[in-house]
């Protein structure tokens, strides 16, 4: 996949949709393209967060440790971003991400990601929107869980 295709992919990621293509190209250029085969781990729960990942192709599972072993809580599809929370909060990874199929991702380093957020407010706003959206979903889930 060439740089310009990656830019096309990034444009489809909601988080980056507001950013002009030239800047996305820079982001793609300065990020590492990484391949994983099925079953390989991108990062583990509890690790220190040093990068965020954009899925270019393939699928990955989000796993959370529990007493009865890891539980799959979600699936990542192409164009989704994962791992950004640990970067933003300076916390450790809240879940494990494992490649479900052979996987191509763009690995954006922490310092690059933070720099981008500083330079592109539209991206930051989008980021906040996504997070808020997730929070409202989580809250709704929690209420459902309480009521159940």
């Amino acid at each position: 996949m060439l740089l310009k295709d990656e830019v096309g992919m990034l444009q489809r990621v909601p988080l980056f949709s507001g950013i002009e293509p030239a800047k996305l190209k820079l982001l793609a250029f300065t990020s590492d393209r990484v391949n994983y085969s099925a079953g390989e781990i991108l990062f583990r729960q509890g690790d220190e967060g040093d990068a965020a990942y954009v899925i270019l192709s393939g699928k990955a599972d989000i796993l959370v440790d529990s007493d009865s072993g890891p539980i799959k809580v979600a699936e990542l599809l192409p164009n989704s971003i994962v791992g950004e929370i640990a970067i933003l909060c300076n916390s450790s990874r809240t879940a494990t991400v494992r490649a479900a199929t052979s996987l191509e991702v763009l690995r954006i380093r922490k310092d690059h990601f933070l720099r981008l957020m500083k330079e592109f407010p539209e991206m930051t706003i989008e980021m906040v929107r996504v997070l808020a959206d997730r929070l409202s979903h989580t809250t709704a889930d929690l209420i459902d869980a309480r009521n159940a």
Partner: protein
Amino acid sequence: MEPSLTRYIWRHTRKQQIWILAIVLLSMIPYFMSFNLPKLIVNGPIQGKGFEQPGATLPFMRLHYDLPFIGEVQFFSGFQLDRTATLLALSIVFLLLVVINGLFKLYINTYKGRLGERMLRRIRFDLIDRVLRFPPIYFKRVKSAEVATMVKDEVEPLGGFIGDAFLQPVLLGGQALTAMLFIMVQNVWLGMIAVVIVVIQIVLIPRMRRRLLVLGRQRQLTARALSGRVGEIVDGIGAVHVHDTSNYERADIAARLGLIFKIRFDLYQWKFMVKFLNNFLAQLTPFLFYMIGGYLVIAGRLDVGQLVAVIGAYKDLPGPMKELIDWDQDRQDVQVKYQQVVEQFSVEDIIAPSIGALTIDDPGRMTNPLSAVGLSIADDGGAMLLNRISMQVRPGETVALVSTSTGGAEALAEAFARLNWPESGKVASGADDLLELPEAVTGRRMSYASSDVFLFQASLRDNLLYGLKHAPLTSVTYEGAAADKQRWNIDEARRSGNPDFDIHSDWIDYVSAGATGPHDLFEAVRRVLDAVLLSRDILDLGLRSSADLTRHTKLAGRIVELRAALRTRLEQEGLRELVVPFEPGAYNTEATIGQNLLFGAAAGPELADKALAANPYFASVLKQAGLDRTLYEMGMEIAEQAIELFADLPPDHQFFQQLAFMSAEEIPAYETLLQRLKNRPYEAVSEADRAMIITLSFAYIEPRHRFGLLTDELMGKIVAARNQFYENLPPQLQNAIERYDPDKYIAAATVMDNVLFGRVGTNHPDAPDRIRSIVYDILDELGLYAELLDVGLDFNVGAGGRRLTGGQRQKLDVARALLKRPDFLILNRPLSALDQRIQDKVLRNVLEEARRDGHSPAIVWVVTSPAMAMMFDRVIVFDSGQLVEDGTHETLLAGNGIFKELLS
């Protein structure tokens, strides 16, 4: 050292000064003869005096003297020569005298120069010798750069002066006196005038120069302080940047330079003022001669001839006088410099020379207990760190010193290491005061490591073995020219009062490290490195550095085996795609285009980096292969993309780390270049511009940069160009490149690159770590682990060891202390930069390693955490400079004292 320079010079060069004086006096004979000779030539053969008769001859070289009572005695009647022959003979004598005078001058100057240089060498050595014997407290007060300037710069002028120290006044004084006497003989009154003026000069000028001396001293002190500050800025550059104080430093330096300028300018003004006065006085005398002498002539009390003779003689007076006064100025100047330096180097409590005397024989073991007797130690400000402590460490005992923050255990450890001298009481080994034992005993039978490590700028190996270099243990035999040189070295060293220990001898005391010679020393080294957990770090350094093949032959010899083993292992673990190997007939997609073209490691500047594209031979190969145009177009594309991506970013933006093609500073240059070359046909582009653009393509790696510029066809062409390049490689480039050969070790590449013989794929984030651990496994399996460790030991640690991390430095210090296998091992918070888990591990290893082979040294360890004390026979607790608890770990734990409190 002598407080007076004159006395110092006289003491060390008395004989030489007398000798050179004698030679100078001897040289006066031909010198004065050559004065008289022109008169003889002109009057005799040229004007024909004595040759009035044609065919007349005169004796030449007749030796005859009028002796009292005996009358004229003739020793030699001389040769009878006619006019022309006499002219010839006298001219030849003249030439002979010129040569003799010249040779005398050469000899005298060489002798003086050598004398001065020897003395300079002696002074410098004496100074450094004193530095080596200063008491520890002195070093808390001086800046190293200041000491260095004193030794290097401030004594330098002394060398020039020493040869003239006694000669010049005798010589010039003699000349001045002769001229004076001559004037006196002509006319007493005129002579008196000259005397008065000279006396005024002698009295007044040095007086005025006193201010020059004061200024000179100030200049010396301010310059020394400046070099101290510069040294401080360099050493503390981190602190300067961290606190944004660079402008404070700028202000400080500017202020100092301003002061130095002012002093120097004052010096100039005053100097020329003195010069003016001196010249004026010298010229005043002829004025008086003309006026008073003229009056005397008019009055008829002096004849004209005498006046002219006096004025003529006076011409010879100011010269020597001036030089004499200059000499005196020099003397005072260097005397001041010398005193300034000697003052700085005269310290109380200097260590006696016998303490550090060279001892070749093994001093024998320290079997007496080490004790502190009523020991008090104060810090520089006078506060008590330890207050009348008495304790004893028996041989073979392991003792943990536990201390509250003001406890003073560290001061005790420093006192054991003689780094901190007692305020009162003493540290003793048996009945002897430790400070009176020679360093040959304490430095060999005791070891000390602390958190404050100093490493020399040398290899890791040299630093590690530094603790074993006590004395030259082998005598090196030199042959031929080297033997002559060595004899000369020894002879000169002795003449300058320097020691003649041979630095090329083997200084390493193998026996104390438990080895018998260079061949089995490595085992001991490896054990101590393992003990302090430093081996892995050194292996990493070894992998990243290029091996010296003259030393590490094994690695090169088995490289094929190593590469094959790596391939097999990667295959077995299903990691084949992690490394793309170099294959002579194939394009390596993970390597740059430049690497693929060159397919070798640049061993010289001709084909390295930016020079490659501009190399004429390389350019011609590209042209032949039909690649020049393709790569140019590719370079243009890359330039466009790179500028599009990066042009708007500030030059310090961290994204630039990702841009392999050009640096942030080069962007504007490429921007203009691109504008200029756009739409210009390839043929119209100059060679230099082409090279600029083609260079960009050399850094391109398709999977990493993903511009989509590399086609299969292009790859094929590149491989073909590679072969062409090597086929016709001109002889002058043969040594500039080492071709990648699967069967050969590449000396210019790192060990890691040699083993990999390929490129790690960019698509696997953890590939480097995985490969590294596989490489270690393989090296171990093939028995090359030690070899790699040895390569790592070649690593230069940098100034003060700063290329290592703090933790690595501390580990190295402990390893160095262990390697000596001492009777008393003193460790003063030695691993404070490491986390507690590693500290515990190293502690356990060190205790075990120290006791290997039935050795049982006493170990005194100032621990950073009280929990570590569990590992020791005995625990001593300090609080506020007092020894508060002393016992085994169990007893202290059972009691309810400070130790228990500290533990919880």
